[in-house]
């Protein structure tokens, strides 16, 4: 006897199940997922601090106080001070603001652009796809960090420049993912049905393609944010990207490098923040994937 597992009733009639459980269920599961919770526990405080930094009672991050140079952590300066006597706690939170903003923006821009490009390439196929894929391949043939470095070296230093550079570096990845996603669902029965019914293309794209490809992108979004923050830190660390006095985690770490031996806290604190925050984002991504990914769902059902 052949063991043919019948396709569950639910999946056959409701195509959305192939791309995850029904909406209301998702939120419920998300909140219940251990990793998502852990991720949120880490990410939310950082984001909150970063968002509300201007109205919180921190010392001004660029206020120098030469008498206090390089003091170690103490009650008045919980994270110590740097070479100009600036309070490191306040600089680290200010740095969080910039780093997180760069990460979120770069991820958002690259995913949006990537979804656009990938959808066009995947849906229309033919020569459009060939050209777009060829261009994507050109960019994908090169490690992302190096693209970022090259662009930043040319654009010059600054926050907007690095957002642009990282966005450009990540867009091809997002585009490729989206294209694969669109390709896989292009020929589903309901898509055929929609085309048969002579639905206009833009309607098909908006009503079917985009909503069904958004969920994998959410997971990717979290990872892209983490990667973008890490790349910004690395680029700022090489001296390009964000330069003093603008505090970003990367530029603060670089600033502390010269005094690593005697004032290790200057580099260490933002480094730890960076790592912990990225861990939080990865947990979030991992947990979300567990909830959304249908194969995991099916496995649980066995």
């Amino acid at each position: 006897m052949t063991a043919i597992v019948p396709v569950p009733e639910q999946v056959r009639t409701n195509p959305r199940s192939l791309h995850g459980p029904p909406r209301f269920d998702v939120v419920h599961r998300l909140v219940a997922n251990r990793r998502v919770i852990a991720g949120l526990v880490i990410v939310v405080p950082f984001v909150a601090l970063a968002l509300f930094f201007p109205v919180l009672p921190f010392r001004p991050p660029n206020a120098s106080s030469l008498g206090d140079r390089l003091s170690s952590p103490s009650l008045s300066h919980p994270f110590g001070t740097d070479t100009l006597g600036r309070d490191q706690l306040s600089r680290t939170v200010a740095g969080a603001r910039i780093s997180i903003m760069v990460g979120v923006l770069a991820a958002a821009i690259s995913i949006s652009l990537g979804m656009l490009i990938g959808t066009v390439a995947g849906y229309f196929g033919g020569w459009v796809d060939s050209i777009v894929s060829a261009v994507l391949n050109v960019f994908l043939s090169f490690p992302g960090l190096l693209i970022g470095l090259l662009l930043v070296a040319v654009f010059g230093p600054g926050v907007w420049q690095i957002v642009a550079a990282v966005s450009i570096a990540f867009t091809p990845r997002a585009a490729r993912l989206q294209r694969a996603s669109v390709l896989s669902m292009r020929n589903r029965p309901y898509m055929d049905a929609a085309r048969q019914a002579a639905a206009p293309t833009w309607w098909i794209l908006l009503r079917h393609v985009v909503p069904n490809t958004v969920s994998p992108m959410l997971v990717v979004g979290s990872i892209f944010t983490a990667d973008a923050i890490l790349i910004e830190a690395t680029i700022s660390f090489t001296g390009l990207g964000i330069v003093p006095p603008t505090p970003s985690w990367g530029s603060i770490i670089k600033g502390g490098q010269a005094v690593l031996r005697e004032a290790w806290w200057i580099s260490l604190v933002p480094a730890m923040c960076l790592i912990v925050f990225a861990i939080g984002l990865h947990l979030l991504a991992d947990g979300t994937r567990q909830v959304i990914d249908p194969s995991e769902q099916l496995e649980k059902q066995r």
Partner: protein
Amino acid sequence: MKHHAASGRVARRWLAVPIALGLLAAIGGSASADSTTGRSSANYSVGASDTTPSGELAEEQVLRARLAAAPRSLDPAFVDRLDAEVMAYNIYNGLVDYDDEGAFVPDLAESWESNEDLTEWTFQLRQGVQFHNGYGEFTSADVKFSYERIQDPDIASFFAIDFENVGSIDTPDPYTVVFTLTEPDALFLHSVAHFHGGDIVSQAAVEELGDEFEASPVGTGPFFLETFDAGQGFYVLERFDEYWGEPATLERVELTVVDDNEAAAIALENGEFEMGIDITGDDRLAQLEADGFQMITRARSNLITMLNPEANPAFADVRVRHAIAHCIDFTTIIEDLLSFREARSYNFLPPTLPEYTDDVPHYEYDPELGRQLLEEAGYADGLVVKRLIRGSDGVEDRDLLEQEMLAECGITEEFETVEVSEFSERRFQGDFEIATRSVNEPNIDFIVTSLLHPDQFPPGGLNGAQYSNPEVTALIEEARSVTDPDELKAMYGEIQRIVMEDLPYIPENTLRQFWPTWDHVDVPELTVLASMDFTLVSIGVAD
């Protein structure tokens, strides 16, 4: 299910990294209190017990020095940066050289004289001087060849401008050279001095090696180039035993490029180098000094701030310029931030020049006066200015302090940070309101002409402040034909006084270079051009 028990373990594993980092930090913290520990791999140790070198010479006289960047070319036509200059100084000679005060002394020329109107210069050359690698004896033909190739537009040397006024070079006999100039030049000796384009090359070698000469130079100096490994960044100078002058004690000088300052300092402390050329960073230098290194140093150049009235019309008003100078407390900045390096500078010229004078107006910190001047100039409501910043340094601590101080006078300073390459270009084009420059030439005519002559406005010239004062222009041009040293000094003194009164450029501080060296190495002071004469270096016995 298994998940419950496991998540605790998972959480603990994630904590491992922060804990590990914390432990490392603790190690870092405790060890920093005693900076002499941890150098277990060092060949030497430095500490309070070491005072003066014992006087005994080490068996192996090899100096290992760190270069900050790779020399691009050792062809005198293109030697323009410290790394190449250091090597060129020991490989070549010029007709004359500078002593410690910047006065001219004989080098390959034993004596010289000029005619009345300074248009004809005759040099008697040293005899029996040998070139490296068996390229024969040095003669006047080599002098003629060396300088004519600098003039050659096909060579496109950076220093062609130094020989612009040379009409012809004649060699009546193998040991005499006569230069005929197109106009009087009291400072002609600078052009044939042992620096940059003034170095003499072997005609035979250049003709034989062609393009390869710049990596296999042949000169008459106390050392010859034995290795030029650009790929590894490794260069070796070896003692030239047929040198015409005082022979070196050192057998070899091994120069390695380490462009990262931190890594260089670490390597120096670990004993991988005896000498670290151009180590920067005040904290790093302070620590090296505390650890007992000899801080060989020289004020190489002068940092000045250029105010461009074309970009910001406020700078056309002399009161505004004076106000800015009065509003910044340079002394505090220098003492607190740059304590290692610098002296406050009150003159746009570097103090190393013989023509330098201190008899110029000084601008002390006086914010009251500054505010008053601004008010008189019509900027009682404030003034906005923009400073161009080089991306590799970023906005430095001193820039931030200056910004704070200016703010107290009602001047809002904005920063515009651009990438290194763009910074150089914009400065070159004159596309800035405020930018800094360093002044470091030994030839005072070059400095005052490039900074103050109306023919030298950017783009194309270095007169970034677009300064034009007919009185000064006249003095500059006249000084070129003055022979009497006292008269010369008086004229340049007058120029300095007028310019410091007009203040198109605000002097900030001197720029030193530091060459921290292990204390068992006997090493002289840096030369007047901030280079080093390796013939005066010897390695003592290390402890």
